[in-house]
């Protein structure tokens, strides 16, 4: 302490280390709890109460700094029901609010998914180079390459299941076809297995098939990009140029008899509905 201090007579029991130093504790507790102290309390305690009242006083202009940021954070918070109260803001805007480290895995996952879908669509469309098409044929049941229909290309395990009308495709294949293609394009309705010469292509997918080349075996209709492509929803996600729509128009213009025998599929494939 610098300089002269208040005497004990002036502040009895107030300063520490002096007789009666603990007697002021109830008053100090009252100050801490912001309760009014009795009028008979020492003047210094009243001054102290004034100091504390100023410290806990009302807000000053600078005391509300950051309100806009806090409110913005609050409005960005998604609501429990899943819809943000910033509903007018687009999902794209919200995505840009994410930190970069959160966007990177998402973008990578989307790219991988798009690539996978595109590759699968291209494989089913028969648009891949022959060796890769053969691999796709072996692995995911895509149609074999047209230029080498009887050639067997062994890739990896030779025991890979070869889809045929008599065999059951692997679970993943089956799931893909059931959910992404019309019922008429299931493996059982494909006509590319020579072991089933009695098989004839179903009417629904035949309507989406382009006219075969003269050299093509009519008894073994090879699935074409159109009828082997996934469902329209998947096709729209695929970056492959072999999408359903352009080829459908050409198919419908094809003079093949299969077109005239087309009957609407109950599964509602989009191919026949496209105007010629």
């Amino acid at each position, binding site marked *: *302490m*610098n*300089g*002269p*201090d*208040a005497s004990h007579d002036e502040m009895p029991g*107030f*300063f*520490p280390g002096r007789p009666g130093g603990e007697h*002021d*504790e109830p008053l*100090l*507790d009252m*100050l*801490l*709890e*912001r309760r009014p102290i009795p009028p008979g309390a020492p*003047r*210094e*305690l*009243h*001054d*102290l109460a*004034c*100091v*504390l009242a*100023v*410290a*806990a*006083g*009302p*807000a*000053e202009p*600078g*005391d*509300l*700094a*950051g*309100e806009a*940021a*806090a*409110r913005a*954070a*609050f*409005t960005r*918070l998604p*609501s*429990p029901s899943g819809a943000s*109260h910033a509903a007018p803001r687009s999902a794209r805007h919200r995505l840009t609010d994410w930190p970069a480290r959160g966007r990177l895995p998402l973008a990578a996952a989307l790219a991988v998914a798009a690539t996978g879908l595109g590759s699968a669509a291209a494989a089913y469309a028969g648009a891949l180079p022959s060796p890769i098409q053969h691999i796709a044929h072996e692995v995911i049941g895509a149609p074999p390459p047209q230029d080498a229909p009887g050639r067997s290309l062994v890739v990896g395990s030779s025991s890979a299941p070869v889809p045929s009308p008599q065999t059951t495709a692997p679970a993943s294949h089956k799931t893909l076809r059931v959910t992404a293609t019309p019922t008429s394009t299931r493996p059982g309705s494909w006509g590319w297995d020579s072991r089933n010469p009695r098989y004839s292509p179903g009417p629904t997918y035949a309507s989406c098939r382009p006219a075969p080349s003269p050299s093509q075996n009519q008894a073994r209709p090879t699935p074409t990009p159109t009828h082997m492509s996934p469902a329209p929803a998947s096709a729209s996600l695929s970056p492959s140029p072999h999408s359903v729509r352009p080829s459908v128009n050409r198919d419908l213009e094809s003079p093949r008899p299969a077109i005239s025998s087309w009957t609407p599929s109950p599964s509602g494939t989009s191919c026949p509905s496209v105007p010629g």
Partner: protein
Amino acid sequence: MIGAAFRDILASAQADDEAAFTQLFRDVQPSLLRYLRLIAPDAEDVASDTWLQVVGGLRRFRGEEHEFRAWLFTIARHRAVDSGRSRARRPAVPLELTEAEQQFTSPDAADQALEAMSTQAVLALIASLPGDQAEIIMLRVVAGLEAREVARIVGKTPGAVRVAAHRGLRKLASVAARPDIERASTKPGVTQ
């Protein structure tokens, strides 16, 4: 302090009512900033981090007003500690107590000076106390927390908190009652 309406306001804020959230913010932010200015040089940044965390956990919060404030000040203290770690060994700027003393002096009587003193000067006066005492007084008086809540926040026992608060208040009273401050008020040109 909001008082009896706190429960409804909190419920509204938890139901995405921005106006209710603003009420909560405006009620707590002044005391939060004053507390943070005592313990963190970058008080505004720490306050922003604190509110971000509060917003993130608001819907999960259950409790009364004093519990809400205790929760919020606990977050604030943690964020201040984190901020201090990130600043690592940056030297702290010591408070100029004489400035504070000059600011709250007045040419008139001492009580008038105390009544008229600015919040800034008072906070500087409290900041002149030993760190733990100043922090405890701020949490008890400015934040309005109870001793046991302050004890949880600062990691002491309620008894230790009470003792530290009493010591701090006594020192504060002795500083406010110093005759040299009254003498400073007579210096020409020294106004509040």
